């Protein structure tokens, strides 16, 4: 009994930290740009397959491949912002459909070049083996990923709370028009937020690649988790995102250990809907980023 309980708590916290890395980029976009970035899932897939392309087709070293992948991701998010988001910010139905279409195009193109049956192996395993945390056995790589997630979230939070850039971004998330009147370069900051938001999912995908299955449509499952966390954590609020990530992590681990791992998303959805019926705005207020 105690072993199961400790496993639920340990895996809940580790998963919660990972979900933080998964969802923080989405929350940042929702909070700053106040848009619904439906193509967010593709960031995970691109992180894996662009790295794999540089490794297998261009025979580059892992560190160079990862650096180039980050450059490609930043350039891609910038192009998406300039080409679609900036243009259709006011026509949301077009924006939502266009972003989803972009995700489908890239997923299908990846599936064409590297079909799901093709083995993709990214050597990003930092340490192999298991360790014991609170009586529960857990992969060391997962623990490292969780620590990286916490550190990364701490950095983003500190930047948002303590720097001048963070102050402007928070002002922008509260009221775009007023921020513009105060001299904030809205489009530059929007593009910057888009570019920053691809870094956490890229790190997450690379850290988890040696442990979890990799295929061209993997982005959707991460996207569902990011969506649930965003909804529960008051879309676009980082404080809410942090709390929601750990809540969803604990729900996932409880359902996985006690009922059936494949029902974990359903359980998280039911919990989110039940919570929304009591508090429709989510865990925190959604008017600002923090």
């Amino acid at each position, binding site marked *: 009994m105690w072993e199961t309980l400790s496993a639920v708590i340990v895996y809940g916290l580790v998963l919660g930290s990972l979900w933080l890395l998964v969802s923080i980029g989405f929350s940042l976009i929702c909070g700053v740009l106040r848009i619904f970035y439906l193509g967010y899932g593709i960031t995970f897939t691109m992180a894996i397959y662009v790295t794999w392309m540089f490794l297998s087709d261009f025979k580059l070293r892992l560190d160079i491949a990862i650096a180039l992948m980050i450059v490609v991701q930043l350039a891609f998010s910038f192009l998406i912002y300039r080409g679609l988001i900036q243009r259709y910010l006011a026509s949301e*139905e077009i924006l*939502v459909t*266009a972003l989803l*279409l972009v995700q489908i195009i890239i997923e*299908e193109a990846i599936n064409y070049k590297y079909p799901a049956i093709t083995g993709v192996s990214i050597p990003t395993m930092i340490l192999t083996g298991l360790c014991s945390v609170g009586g529960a056995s857990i992969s060391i790589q997962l623990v490292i990923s969780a620590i990286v997630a916490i550190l990364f979230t701490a950095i983003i939070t500190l930047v948002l709370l303590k720097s001048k850039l963070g102050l402007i971004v928070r002002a922008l998330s509260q009221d775009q028009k007023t921020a513009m009147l105060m001299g904030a370069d809205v489009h530059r900051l929007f593009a910057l937020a888009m570019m920053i938001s691809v870094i956490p999912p890229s790190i997450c995908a690379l850290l988890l690649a040696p442990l979890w299955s990799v295929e061209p449509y993997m982005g959707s499952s991460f996207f569902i988790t990011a969506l649930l966390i965003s909804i529960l954590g008051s879309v676009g609020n980082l404080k809410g995102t942090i709390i929601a990530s750990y809540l969803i992590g604990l729900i996932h681990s409880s359902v996985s250990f006690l009922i*059936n791992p494949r029902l974990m998303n359903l359980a998280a959805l039911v919990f989110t809907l039940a919570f*929304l019926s009591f508090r429709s705005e989510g865990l925190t207020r959604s008017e600002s980023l923090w």
Partner: protein
Amino acid sequence: MKIELKRSRLEVRLDYKKLKLAWTIEPRYWRNPLLAWLALCALPLLSLMGGLQWLSIFTTANLCATIALPLLLQIIGTGRVNLGPQLFVALGGYTAGLLSINYKMEALQTLPIVIVVALLVGLSLSLLTILARGIYFSLITLIIPLVFMEITFVFSDVFKGETGIYGITPLFRLGSHLINSIAYYYASLMILTLYLFLVDKILRSRWGMVYAAINNDEDVAMMMGVDINRHKIFVFTVTSVLTAIAGWFFAHYFGTFAGVTYLPFTFMIKILFIVLIGGRAQAYGTIAGAYFVSILDELLRSYLGNISHFVFPSILLVLLVALPEGLWGIYRKHKYREIYPTIRIRR
């Protein structure tokens, strides 16, 4: 009943005791739609020259339009964008399929049960239109079909996972394949016409005005005395049932039903695109959109093979950018009716 010709309009009046009904028919407005409908009726003759596969494509186009039309009405009537209409397609298809293979029920026997199931699920999910608004509603409706797909994999002994349910009793057993195909085409066209008539009549009626008011600003509509919750629940539930009927048709038409075909983003985006490329919530435009998307998909698949999987969405993306008013925008010569609502997500 009296039929009067007033200027270029026909007015049909029915006075019976306390019941007074009036229906204005304006032939100058339905001349082109009528011609288009007659062309659709003649399509099987044309497709006989091109092969039976085209008849199947046109039937699928009709069914896609029967999903897009209720979605359009729902978007306007609830003031919310449902990104998961395929949930009810799957619900209708699975209910029909499971009843058919487990209880050997015929298509017409499964239909009332599909309607009841969709009604109950639609009614319970319609609460979302009250609980969540704007982006929350869209996000939740986006997730529910994906979670349902996971359930079909978890309970694969019931839903048969990726292979899906097969051996579902067909709607028509008329002997030859050709006659069956024609029968399916006309049946789908009949449902489509019925849906189009219903949606068009509602949008032009007093209810349409109320829905437009809800779509524009539900708080203002409520202040004006509109019982917005009642209307939202009603329109969500009814359109859910209409969508489930399309799922029921899919199941009894193809004889198989797999959630993996209908529940992912790809099918949803096709339906959403039909609504948009048809002319951004224009009832007649959705039919043009459905035919356009279905024919384009088939042509690309035939000529390009596997590459079509990403060429097809790429063309859709280009069209979305190039035709902001959709195909209906090319046809339409006048401005939008001021009353006609537009789709908005962030509210």
